[in-house]
Structure formats: C-alpha cells, structure tokens
C-alpha cells in the first residue's frame, strides 16, 4: 500500500522552506501577559484571581466552567494588573486576566516534578490533563480531557496522532517532531494507557521525511504504535480526512471520531499531555511559526502563552517593510489580524506577515461552472450549487445539497478561477442555519 490519503483537496505553495530548518528559540516575554478566558471550544473559563493578586508560574488563573471548558494557566509569576475584556485573534473582545510579569518565574509547588505515569490510574491521568488546561492544539481547541473520555474506553481501537501539518507555511509541529520526538511518543503511550484495545498511529505527510525517519526509529520495538506516511495534500490534517486516510472510516459532520472507535490528537497536544502527566507541567507554552515575506528572520519560537504578538514578531527580527496582511495561523484557515496587540493563545500556531495581499487584488467574476470546486471538495459536495443557494439565501436548498457537511477548509475558494468567496458564504449560511435551529 502506498501513502494514505483522501479524495479531493488541493496542492498549494507550501512555504515551509522558510522555517523548517530553524531550531526553535525560547522567547522570554518582557511586557504584560494577557490570558483570555476563552481559548477553547465550549464555555469560557471563570477567572479565579482579582486585580492585585500575586500569581505563580503554573498557577491556575481561570477555572473551567461547565462540562466542556478548560482551565487557563499563568506562564509567568507576577501581579494581576486587571481583569478586563481584551482583543483576541478572533477579532472579538474577550474577558482576560492581565498579568504584570515580574521576571522571577517563581513556580507553584511541584511544578516540573517527574512522575511515573505507568503507576497512575486512568482517572488520575484524566484529571491531570483536565487540571493542566490542555485543549486540542491543532487549532480546534476542543478540551482534550473531554475528547479522551468517550464513555466506553474499550470501544476505541485507534489512537491517531495528527502530525500532518498540512497548512502552508506552518512548521511548528514539524520542529517538535525533530526536537522532541520522545515526548510525542510518550504522550501517545499515555493516551494508549487510557484505551486498552487501541493501537497508536502517527500520521505524517510525506513532505516531512526527516520527521518520519526520526519517529520510525523511536517506534522500533513498540508493537502497538505505527507511523503512517500520508500524501502531502491540504487538508490532510482535517479530522475527517485523517481518520479516513488512516483507518478507511468515513465521518460526516454529525459523527465524532470516538463514534467510529478513533481518538485524534495533534502532535503538540501529545507533547502537552506528556508534559502534564509525566513532568507536572501544565499547558503554558506554544510553538509559533513566524513567517511570510514581510518578516526579517522567519523562524519557530517557543512562546509563553499570553505573550503579545508584537514581542513574537520582534523576536523574529521585526518587519522588512510595511505588511499589508497579517494572519494568526495558516493561510487556509487562519484569522486575518487588524492589530498586533493580541496575545498568543493555546492555539496560536503561527504569525504570518505578507507585504502583499494578492487575494485583495483578484476581481471576482462570473462562475464558469468549471467544476473545480467540486473536485477539490473533501466533503464531496458541489460548492458551485451551494453558492447559488447561499446567494439566494435559500437555506432549505443549501441543506438539501448537504451544505452542512462543508468543513470550511477553503479548498473550493482556493481553486475557483472566478475568485468567488465560496467558503466565506458557506460559513455565513451555516451559521445562520444553526442559529435558526437553536430558536
């Protein structure tokens, strides 16, 4: 069998050569740190500190509120300056805890203590993961402990580590595979401990042969862990595409991986799990790729959560010239920024700065029905038809065309020769349909 893959998808300019060979540098924050209480899917956390409180590195400052929520941990020691709404990369103001860094990095008790995870019970592992504020670091930010609690552990037969990193420009996961492969492996072993009947599979796109080599060496002797090379194609790291490529099981928008016996976690999530469980270190850092033609010295940085984007950009040598576009995350699914006064959150994978926004110069024209959107669609629906429905605000027609199966990967928009904003209109349509269902 060749490399595993899925039907549809696109091949973009990868842009990974800018940063893939750059060793990750640790960045120490200088200014204040901002911790939004909502860095995950689900209910926002409740802040449990007040202005004037002194907090330690590794201390919980936001408490998970409800079943699907996540703790927020301070990555520095210092005084709480304020608890107020601050701008996040989503463009929204979110209630945040602002901490004045005292540069002492005083740890809470027990931080960094080694633990033998083989001796821990499943309940202990899950509660450590929950306490550590770990969420899916691939971008979706779903609370990991919830994901790892599917109800019946015995039904899970495959634990997949998502090491595809299919977004252009991003190399932070790749760097981790080269620099901290043992932690990934051990993180996977910890997850496997929760699911007695499961084997682990690490799926890596075949444009990362070094990473495949490194992890394959580590697998040596483990009969429950396997490395799977995936075809390099966006969105290979999309959950539905990855589960299909690795197991042949097809998910639709209403089915979660655990319902077909799979648990999927990103490589960096696996590292976070290892750090929390084996080294008593909660989620306090993020690997951020800084790249794009407006960046002087593109690279990867090990950044404390809460650090201002401006400092991250400075660490990369600053700008070569005025950028026209800045993106938090990758160019396919990332968020365009209008300000750099935004904190690095748990899910910040990249900061991309471009001198030219060539998309803005592309004039949309009439659809010529070339069908490329349909060939590129990993959900195997026809965006061309859905677009007509969304233009006419025809919710019923949109649903009939399986428009709700759209995963908003952006492939159709990418290939469209008429430069129509397909994904964007589907996103809006889906939101309004979901809103009206709630009523």
């Amino acid at each position: 069998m060749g490399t595993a893959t899925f039907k549809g998808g696109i091949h973009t300019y990868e842009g990974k050569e800018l940063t893939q060979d750059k060793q990750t540098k640790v960045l120490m924050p200088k200014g204040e740190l901002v911790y939004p209480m909502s860095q995950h899917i689900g209910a926002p956390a409740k802040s449990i500190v007040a202005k004037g409180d002194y907090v330690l590195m590794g201390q919980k400052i936001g408490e998970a509120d409800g079943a699907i929520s996540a703790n927020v941990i301070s990555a520095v020691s210092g005084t709480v300056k304020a608890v107020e709404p601050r701008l996040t990369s989503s463009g929204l103001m979110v209630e945040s805890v602002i901490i004045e860094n005292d540069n002492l990095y005083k740890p809470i008790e027990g931080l960094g203590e080694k633990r033998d995870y083989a001796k821990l019970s499943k309940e202990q592992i899950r509660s450590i993961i929950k306490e550590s504020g770990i969420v899916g670091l691939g971008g979706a930010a779903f609370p990991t402990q919830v994901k790892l609690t599917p109800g019946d552990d015995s039904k899970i037969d495959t634990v997949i580590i998502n090491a595809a990193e299919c977004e252009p420009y991003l190399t932070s996961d790749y760097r981790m595979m080269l620099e901290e492969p043992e932690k990934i492996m051990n993180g996977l072993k910890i997850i496997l401990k929760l699911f007695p009947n499961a084997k682990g599979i690490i799926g890596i796109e075949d444009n990362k042969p070094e990473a495949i080599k490194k992890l394959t060496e580590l697998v040596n002797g483990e009969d429950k862990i396997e490395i799977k090379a995936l075809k390099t194609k966006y969105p290979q790291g999309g959950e539905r595409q990855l589960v299909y490529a690795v197991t042949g099981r097809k998910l639709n928008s209403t089915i979660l991986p655990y319902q077909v016996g799979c648990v999927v976690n990103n490589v960096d999530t696996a590292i976070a799990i290892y750090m929390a469980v084996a080294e008593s270190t909660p989620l306090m850092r993020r690997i951020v790729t800084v790249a794009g033609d407006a960046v002087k010295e593109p690279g990867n940085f090990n950044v404390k959560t809460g650090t201002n984007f401006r400092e991250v950009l400075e660490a990369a040598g600053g700008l070569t010239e005025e950028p026209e576009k800045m993106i938090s995350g990758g160019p396919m699914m990332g968020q365009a920024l209008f300000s750099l006064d935004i904190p690095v959150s748990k899910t910040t994978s990249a900061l991309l700065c471009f001198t030219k926004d060539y998309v803005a110069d592309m004039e949309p024209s009439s659809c010529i029905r070339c069908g490329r959107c349909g060939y590129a669609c990993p959900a195997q629906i026809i965006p061309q038809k859905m677009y007509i429905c969304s233009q006419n605000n025809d919710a019923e027609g949109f649903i009939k065309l399986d428009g709700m199966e759209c995963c908003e990967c952006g492939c159709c928009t990418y290939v469209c020769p008429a430069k129509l904003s397909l994904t964007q209109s589907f996103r809006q349509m889906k939101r309004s349909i979901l809103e009206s269902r709630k009523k």
Partner: protein
Amino acid sequence: MNKLLNVSASPHTRSFATTTTIMQDVAIALVPASLFGIYNFGLRALLVILTCIATCLLTECVYEMAMKKPITTGDFSAVVTGLLLALNMPVSIPLWIPALGSIFAILVVKMLFGGVGQNFMNPALAARCFLLISFAGRMTDFTVSAVGASASSFDYVKSGAIALDGVSGATPLAALKAGETVSLLDMFLGNTGGTIGETSVIAILVGAVYLLIKKVISFRIPVAYLASFAVFVVLFGGKGLDTNFLLAHVCGGGLLLGAFFMATDYATSPITRKGQVVFGVLLGLLTAIFRIFGASAEGVSYAIIICNMLVPLIEKLTYPKAFGKETKANG
C-alpha cells in the same frame, strides 16, 4: 505600522488559475487544428477564423457597452467561441455567414442569457446549427474550388509536398453513407474534406492532450462519448464489427472536435462526475442515431445541443452523496 491591514475571512490564499487562463488554454489547444485547417484549406481558412473571432469580440463589446456593463472581452471566452465556430465552417463559406453566426452565438446564446457561464447551450454549436438550418447548402458545401485565388499560395505547397486530393471531395462521412470505404490514414492526417478544423485527427488529439495535461478537461465526457458512440455504431451500424467503418465513424466528421472541445464546455455540461459520464453516454447514443438513421451524414452538433438542454436534469439526478453521509455512529 501606519498602514491599515487588510482583514478578510479565510482562506487567505488562492490559486493563480483564472477564467482567462483557462480560456487561453482552450484557445492554445485549438491552435494545432486551426493551423492545420489553414495549411489544408489555404489562407481563406484564416480569413474565416479571423472573421469569427473579431465578430464575436465586437458583439460582446458592443452589447456590454450598450448595457453599461463591465467589458469582459479580455477573458478570452469570446475568442474561444469564435474559434470553435470558425473551425466548424466549410472553407468556401461567404464571410457574412460566419459573421452572422458569430453575432447569433454571442448575442442570442451567450449574452442574452447572462454572459459567460450562464448560457445553456454551447454558443458556437448553437450558432452552427442555426446556420445549418438557415443556409443548409452553403454550410455543407465542402468543395474547395469556390475558394479561388486566396488559396493559391498554399496550392503550390500542396502540389509540391503532399497532394491533398481528398480535400475537395466528399467528406469521409458522406462517403461512408454512400457505402464507400475511406482511407484511415488520410483521416488521421487530415487529408480529407470537411470543415476547417475537423479533418485532422492528429491535430485535434494534440490539442486534446494539452487540455487533459493542463487539467482543463477530464477524460470523463470524451471517453464516455466516444466509447458509447462506438458501441452504438457496432450495434446499429449494420456493419457489425467492421473496423474500418467503426474507426472512420469515430475519426470522421466533427466527433473528435466535438468530444474534446465542445461537449466538455463547462457552462453546458454537467458539473457532477457521474453526470459527465451520463452526458457522454447520451451524446454517443444520439450521435450514432443521427448519423445512422438521420438524413444528414453528421450528427455531433445536434446531439450536443440537445444534451446541453438535459444538463440541469442530469445534474439533479447525479448529485453526489456527501463524504461519510451513510456512516452510522457506533456508540
């Protein structure tokens, strides 16, 4: 940073393919057939081609100016329409006929229905059928004698290099209909009578391969079309598995030009993969019926424009099942 940043919803990147680059690719793919037509039929063929392209561009431009709409002639789609129409003309046609056809193609078939991508019939073919009905005699007159002096420069080349005897004779399909056999080699090279762009199998295939490599078209429609046509010719042709008869039919007339360049027209063919196969099979069936049972030797143009009208129905019936739609949750 003093400049305001551009903010937009993802994705923030696009492929560089545009409507213009696609249409340019189609035009490039038609170059071999056009060049061969000019070589084969003389400079007058070039004149017909230029007349069609110029009239198409002018019609689109004038219409858009009159309607105060953005001018879209730069997207090359009118060039492709003009070129295709010209390649479907006999060389001896009086120039006002292709000019009239071009106006009909762009004005009636394309612009009145909303412009590029909105037409429900292939403009070039609809115009050809319009001309076939209106000027049946002139549209099916494949003698080159009427060309007269304009072809003289090429006559010299012809008599010196390859003697193109077949050029002024009946088309291969007419010969087949009359029960004669035809030379497959002549058809392959294009050494036969017919419209400007349809005679040379090799020139058409070179263009088709270019479109396939550039992924402008897929195999689905042409292969389904040609395969189903071949099957129906074997079944109803009355000659059984007569290879010469079958191949002459497949290579003859406008079938290859139609299968690769006109049946694959985006606006007028199904967008669904399955639908494209269904469309191709229907085209093969209709073309075979027209050719074998019809009064005229040719049938491709009518088959394609009839199937164009079935496209919305075909698309409706072949809408794909979304990925994983049938999966049931387990636990």
